[in-house]
């Protein structure tokens, strides 16, 4: 039986009828239509489905949508503002940290979560923060450089 849940996604309220066996990743993609959140392994190992749930990055493939009732969710689509790309997004573009792009949403959200807490994170802290996000293209170096270069510039929005 479907249940009515309320989600706040990227500062916008949604009221959605979901089945208990739908994951948050499914609802964000299929019901809300925000496909920047990717589905890779679907068992919590690749991090492509990363969203920020009540301020903390999580694997949305492991959260039931019904469990997210009443909570705040930030997806990759929520980062860009009228002023343009978020500084982390801008840095990924400038440093060539995006190749196929499949891991990028999750990488940027994990990076944002780190830099919000610790704007001066060093390389070890950066590598640790994105360690739940797998990239098969870049070898991580440019991603780490992109995140490291953000903190030296203007503070994130």
């Amino acid at each position, binding site marked *: *039986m479907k*249940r009515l849940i309320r989600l706040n996604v990227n500062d916008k309220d949604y009221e959605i009828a979901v*089945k*208990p*066996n*739908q*994951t948050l990743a499914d609802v964000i993609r299929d019901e809300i239509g925000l496909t920047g959140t990717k589905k890779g392994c*679907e*068992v*919590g*190992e690749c*991090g492509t489905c*990363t969203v920020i*749930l009540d301020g*903390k*990055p*999580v*694997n949305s493939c*492991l*959260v*039931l949508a*019904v*469990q997210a009732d009443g909570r705040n969710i930030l997806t990759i689509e929520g980062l860009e503002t009228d002023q343009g790309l978020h500084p982390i997004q801008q840095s990924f573009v400038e440093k060539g940290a995006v190749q196929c792009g499949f891991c990028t949403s999750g990488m940027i959200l*994990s990076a944002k979560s780190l830099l919000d807490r610790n704007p001066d994170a060093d390389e070890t802290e950066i590598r*640790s*923060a994105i*360690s*739940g*996000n797998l990239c098969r293209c870049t070898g991580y170096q440019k991603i780490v450089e992109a995140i490291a270069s953000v903190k030296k510039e203007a503070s994130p929005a």
Partner: protein
Amino acid sequence: MLLPEFDFHEPTTVSKVCEIMGRLREKARPLAGGTDLVVNMKKKLIRPENVVSLAKIDDLKGIVLKNGILTIGACVTAAELAESDAVVKTFDALAEGARVLGSPLVRNLATIAGNVVSARPAADLPPPLMACGARAVLVKASGERSVDLNHFFSGPGKTVMDSSEILTKIFIEVPQGRYGSSYIKLGVRQTLEISLVNVAAFISLDGPGGSIGKVRIVLGSVGPTPIRAKSAEEVLRGQLPSDALLARAAEAASADAQPIDDFRGSAEYRRDMVGVLTRRALTAALDRATSR
């Protein structure tokens, strides 16, 4: 990867959970962080008709250090454990286990109760909890009991819990005087790794420069459950700490392990590493006991 269908329950009190679990028993599974249950359901390894979420029960949250007892609610996440001042200042081993569990994303979901009741032989929290002398509170409609985690696991995925019980909290008595603990995990990578071998150690000292009082050494991933290295503990108990003594204890721990060959590593390698890790864990626990 679709989840099988199930009925979803979201009680707001422990007594309501107990009523549901008492009625549905094997037909229901409690859901805490979901990092184990949801994965196993997606893989169709289990197919419960009912899922009982514990997320809306405030009594299962929070870490409290009061009257010499550290109490950790069932739904406390690995990330909360790792960052808790109360945990860090009392039991280093537990904070160390929480810091290496899964990935940063998983640690924001996975709970202490889930990591304990899933009873995986390589899990990161049971060895430090056992070494520090933790007890679990198990509750059902007809009453509650507390069980020493050293007598909790009965095999891979198996515990002494019955299907109508839920684990509501874990508590550890904070020892007086000089003591220290440590947890070390060995894997081939830093994150999302299942231990090849892990070792937790707890040591108390009888005064500054004194002999070893209480000692517990727990070996993970080298048996069907985490196991106590009893003969290694025997080597240490009542003795004055020294490098030679730790070396003898490490050797005894290697003999206590019951490793198997699998794709992660050979039994021989694991047995060797038990010795290395035991020595390092004991050294760290002793340093902490000395400086406390």
